[in-house]
């Protein structure tokens, strides 16, 4: 057994037991789980998220280091790649957009393999890209859909999203595709990490913990919607209580709801201190967010200290008499 994922798994199980016990213990512990901890988690999330971003913003980038994936703009008759080696801000924005929304660089993921006659080659390895894209897009959809609990009246785009998401009208309550995809994708990414030896070797507890936690969130969510039901109207009333800053507990909602909310709170509070900060960090990647105009514009290293220089004019000024005496040529007589 690998301690790195065992510790993460045990941590998530302990968190589950804590929340479950708290939900069953009484109204006071439900208040802590349903009101106090969510508020604290949001606070920690926002404050430390900003701190992290500001910390990054204060770190100088000494060189202009955009990743170049195509011909740089040079002479007019040499074809340059405006997207893969952006020489303008527009190119950077386009490349950034494709990176953030479609994980374009991950799409280029290759795998070294040796085929017949010992010929080595690099094959496209798309499974990680597929899994990651499914995971992130489904997660985004799920989060956006949850706004139905936090807005009253429910906004049109949210109900539209819900209708699209339950397009296939499977069963009642209608199956949301995004929830199933999220659960499948997080399971895939977890299994991938455990089963592929090279990936397992470089995986740490901080890689497994968010996966187990999100697995728990998705699992408890699916459980609540399709199997062991909770009082949805009560859930919305509590969510609206948090939003309107008049929080209160609705009794008899069901323990899984508190487990779900506790997991989400832990995720939010853990977020700014973990690798999950790639949510903010992606925007600040110097290799992606910079214009590649190294040859066109001079960039000065921000931590360059002032260097004292002695120009030739100053030199001549200082030694002019001696230079003339020695017969050396001077620029000004």
């Amino acid at each position, binding site marked *: 057994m690998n301690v790195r994922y065992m510790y993460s798994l045990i941590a998530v199980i302990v968190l589950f037991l804590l929340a479950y016990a708290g939900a069953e213990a009484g109204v006071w512990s439900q208040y802590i789980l349903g009101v106090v901890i969510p508020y604290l988690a*949001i606070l920690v*999330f*926002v404050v430390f*998220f*900003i701190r992290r*971003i*500001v*910390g990054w*913003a*204060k*770190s*100088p*980038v000494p060189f202009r280091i955009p990743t170049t994936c195509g011909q740089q703009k040079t002479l007019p008759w040499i074809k340059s790649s405006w997207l893969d080696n952006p020489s303008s801000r527009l190119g950077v924005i386009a490349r950034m957009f494709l990176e953030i929304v479609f994980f374009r660089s991950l799409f280029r993921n290759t795998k070294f393999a040796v085929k017949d006659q010992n010929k080595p080659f690099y094959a496209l390895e798309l499974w990680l890209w597929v899994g990651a894209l499914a995971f992130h897009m489904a997660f985004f959809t799920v989060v956006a859909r949850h*706004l*139905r609990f*936090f*807005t*009253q*009246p*429910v*906004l049109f785009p*949210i*109900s539209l999203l*819900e*209708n699209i998401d339950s397009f296939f*009208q499977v*069963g*009642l*309550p*209608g199956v949301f595709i995004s929830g199933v995809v999220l659960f499948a994708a997080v399971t895939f990414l977890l299994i991938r990490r455990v089963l592929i030896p090279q990936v397992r070797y470089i995986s740490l507890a901080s890689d497994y913990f968010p996966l187990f936690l999100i697995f728990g969130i998705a699992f408890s969510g699916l459980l609540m919607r399709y199997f062991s*039901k*909770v*009082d*949805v*109207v*009560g859930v*919305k*009333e509590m969510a*609206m*209580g948090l*939003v*309107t*800053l*008049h929080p209160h507990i*609705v009794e008899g909602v069901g323990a899984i709801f508190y487990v779900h909310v506790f997991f989400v709170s832990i995720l939010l509070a853990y977020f700014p201190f973990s690798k999950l900060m790639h949510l*903010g960090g992606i*925007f600040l990647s110097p290799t992606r967010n910079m214009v590649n105009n190294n040859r066109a514009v001079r960039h000065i290293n*921000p931590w360059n200290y002032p260097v004292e220089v002695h120009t030739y004019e100053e030199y001549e000024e200082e030694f002019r008499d001696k230079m003339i005496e020695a017969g050396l040529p001077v620029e000004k007589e």
Partner: protein
Amino acid sequence: MSKNKKMYNRNIIVAGLILFIALITFPVWNYYVFSGETSTAPEIKLSEKAKAAKECVRSKEYMKTEHMQLLDVWRDTVVREAKRVYVSPNGKSYNMSLSSGDNSCLGCHVDKAEFCDKCHNYASVSPYCWDCHIDPKEKK
């Protein structure tokens, strides 16, 4: 790590952070600026007939969370197996029908708007029952 050092690209980063805070707090300012609608859960109004009957085909708690699955099973049983009688766990028989006649869901819960729609709208649920069925009251 970084004490009182200057922030690079200050304007764009501050703008990004403000956007971040605006997104995170969206439900709060959406409520206080635009909506302001009462946030408490709607109360179901039972019709006189339902009050007189005292209980539904199953217990109130069961109906509250499971009615959609019950109706889904009913639909399949009626449409695919032509069975129209539901026997509840306590032995009573009921006619399996959502909207036709007095002996149906809406025959007892006469006011769809007060009984169904209130909670469905509150929880943003749009069941497709009404793609085929019609509210008998609307017919007139």
